[in-house]
């Protein structure tokens, strides 16, 4: 009896130890640096490889520090923080709306520094949410498909082209499945908010049987392979990063307007190393907004005078407005309308 109790206890203990502490779905987990003194735990939606150079320069400047870098989808990141209260120090995410939700609902803490002052006013919310990149919602086209046509530089020109040559583009268009991708949903809602031409384009793409994708990289590869001729609302930074495909894709930043997604960082309330997290944010912000440009910074640096009239780049506004599209009734309505427009079968 005693033995069996003991064995049950042991099994239970073993199970507890062996069970992964993370219940949410992790894509990648890396440990950088061999410092033992302090460990910074980052939860991020950004691919590890993209930020590795930034992490390494940070570690070089901060001896005795190690970084645990966990990447997950933006939805899983929310689950980990809001529901499971995982003890991460820092959350880096491309899902601006979800980052705002974290800050608005009190899961983050404020951070002030000289680097914070470098951010343009639209890139900082409450000193809680800090933008450290601008990434365009681009149109990626296959140059071979446009060999005899002028490459459209605006939504209106794309619409005109699609109307004129429907047969050439039927089944060869692609965009985000906004129901499956948070970023796709963000781009779509901002498009819908900004211009009526978005719905005309979706209507047209729907009628030409556009293919829907989960993520930017799939669309980029599909264009490169020649499967589709046009991919709409692709994350420009990912397209730029694929230097291997550079001659098979053309990246268009529409000159009527180009939504700019801001990758943001927040320090979590549960942070055990808030000061270290602040230092890492400063490291990112310095690379993003300060001059001179550092080579490790993985994103394209756009001019920060995004509010000027003649510049098409429109940073998506950080603020409570983003909460509107997270409202479940709003989302339901929007998705229903989007589906009825794009999926016309």
């Amino acid at each position, binding site marked *: 009896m005693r033995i069996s109790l003991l064995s049950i206890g042991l099994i239970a203990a073993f199970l507890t130890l062996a069970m992964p502490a993370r219940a949410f779905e992790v894509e990648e987990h890396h440990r950088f640096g061999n410092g033992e003194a302090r460990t910074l735990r980052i939860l991020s939606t950004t691919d590890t490889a993209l930020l590795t150079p930034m992490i390494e320069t940070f570690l070089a400047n901060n001896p005795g520090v190690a970084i645990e870098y966990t990447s997950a989808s933006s939805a899983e990141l929310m689950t980990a923080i809001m529901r499971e209260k995982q003890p991460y120090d820092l959350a880096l995410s491309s899902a601006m709306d979800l980052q705002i939700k974290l800050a608005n609902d009190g899961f983050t803490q404020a951070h002030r520094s000289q680097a914070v002052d470098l951010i343009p006013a639209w890139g900082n*919310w409450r000193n809680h949410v800090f933008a450290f990149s601008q990434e365009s919602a681009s149109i990626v086209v296959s140059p071979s498909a446009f060999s005899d046509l002028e490459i459209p530089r605006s939504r209106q020109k794309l619409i005109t082209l699609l109307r004129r040559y429907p047969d050439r583009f039927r089944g060869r268009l692609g965009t985000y499945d906004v129901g499956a991708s948070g970023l796709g949903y963000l781009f779509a809602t901002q498009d819908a908010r900004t211009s009526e031409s978005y719905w005309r384009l979706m209507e047209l793409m729907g009628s030409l049987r556009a293919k829907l994708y989960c993520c930017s990289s799939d669309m980029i590869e599909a264009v490169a392979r020649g499967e589709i001729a046009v991919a709409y609302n692709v994350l420009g930074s990912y397209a730029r990063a694929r230097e291997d495909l550079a001659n098979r894709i053309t990246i268009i930043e529409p000159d009527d307007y180009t939504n700019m997604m801001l990758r943001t960082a927040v320090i979590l309330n549960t942070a055990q190393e808030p000061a270290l997290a602040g230092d890492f944010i400063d490291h990112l912000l310095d690379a993003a907004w300060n001059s001179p440009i550092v080579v490790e910074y993985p994103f394209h640096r756009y001019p920060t005078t995004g509010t000027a009239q003649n510049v098409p780049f429109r940073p998506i506004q950080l603020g409570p407005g983003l909460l509107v599209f997270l409202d479940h*009734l709003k989302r339901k309505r929007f998705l229903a309308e989007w589906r009825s427009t794009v999926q016309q079968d």
Partner: protein
Amino acid sequence: MSDPLPTSGSLRRRLTLQLVGSAAILATLLFFVVLAFARDTAQQTHDSILLASATSIMDSVSVQADEVTVDIPYAALSMLGNVSDDRVFYRVSMRGNILTGYEDLPHTDQNTSSGQSAFDTLTYKNDGIRMVTLSRRLSLNGAPADILTTVAQTREGQATQLAKLSRSALQLGLGFFLVATVLAIWTAQSSIRPLNQLTAAVSRRGPKDLRPVKRPVPSEMIPLVLSLNQFIARLRTSLTRSEDFIAEAAHRVRTPLATVRTQAEITLRRVEKPENRASIREMIRAIDESSRAAGQLLDHAMVTFRIDSLERKDIFLTETAKELVDRLQPIAELKDIDLSFTGYNCPPITGDAILVQNAVRNILDNAIKYSPNDTTIRVSTQETLSTVLIHVEDEAGGFADMDTDALTHRFTRGENAAGTVGSGLGLTIAREVVEAHGGTLQIETSKSGTGACVSLCFPLV
């Protein structure tokens, strides 16, 4: 005069303190009023934006396919974000069931059924929030359905704005206080000024000046000045009366004395006994002394009277002195005194010729009277840049070490005066005349050291 009067505080200080005190009270009041007003305005502004947000959400509530749905406009929440970086919460509920939004957002205690908006200040998620609740009745499947829309925002932006406004209010209050303090000091100074001016005017007066105060004064000071003038008038009357009395008395005494002296001299001729002659001579000497005293008293009364309304005419001192020397020459000769005059024509001084003459004559009289036989008296005039002087130098032994200032007081006589007829009024008269003309009387030991030198110094205008 020498004893300091006990003071009951300073009018100016009291006035300044009271004015500054009331300025401080007003400034504090102003600060709080402005602050309350600012707080009210900030709150109202915030409330109206919240209300606009809630209204636009409420407007997006509709019934579609027998189901209540909400399509929150982007602007409903982004407008709150444009005002400040505050956290925003909302909720839409129907019949107590949450349709969308933050489920744990607190409920208002106020009645919103009448369609009015209810504002609350509460705490949510460890932060102070301002919350508005709107109510609207929809018809769902023919039955009424009450929709409640709540929008809340944290108040950090408002607090920042208030802090800024408080700073402005504080600066306003301080500025007001500083300006009021400067004005208070100025006011106190200027209201006390007429008093100071009157004081200065009265204390500037000479010892004989008993004219009433005529300068204009503020109405509050009229009673004081009237009383002062009455007091001065009483003093003048009483002074005049006593001077008149003395003059009258002297006059009354002098005439019979002349008769007595004549009788005494006649008697002297008749009396032959040496002891009787000696006592009658003694009597005549006493009569002379009394008569001279009465004369000087009369002189003094005349001088006092004339000084009160001083005549101003050109006087050539050299001529005056020469005339007097000529006139007194016979008396001097009786004692074999060599009375000499030296002087050139000096510019005229202005004043009362009779008084000046009287003064010089008194000095000369004294000199002749106290000089021993066979001595010299030198009278001279002298001109300096701003004064004309008359020196009378004798060989009468001088005033020794006596206080020369005390000599000019009434009825004070020099130490060597014992054997001579005199009243001690001569120097007093001379001094009063000289001072009435703005000059000075100087008594020194003569250059030879055998006598005194009295100088009358008159200013040139």
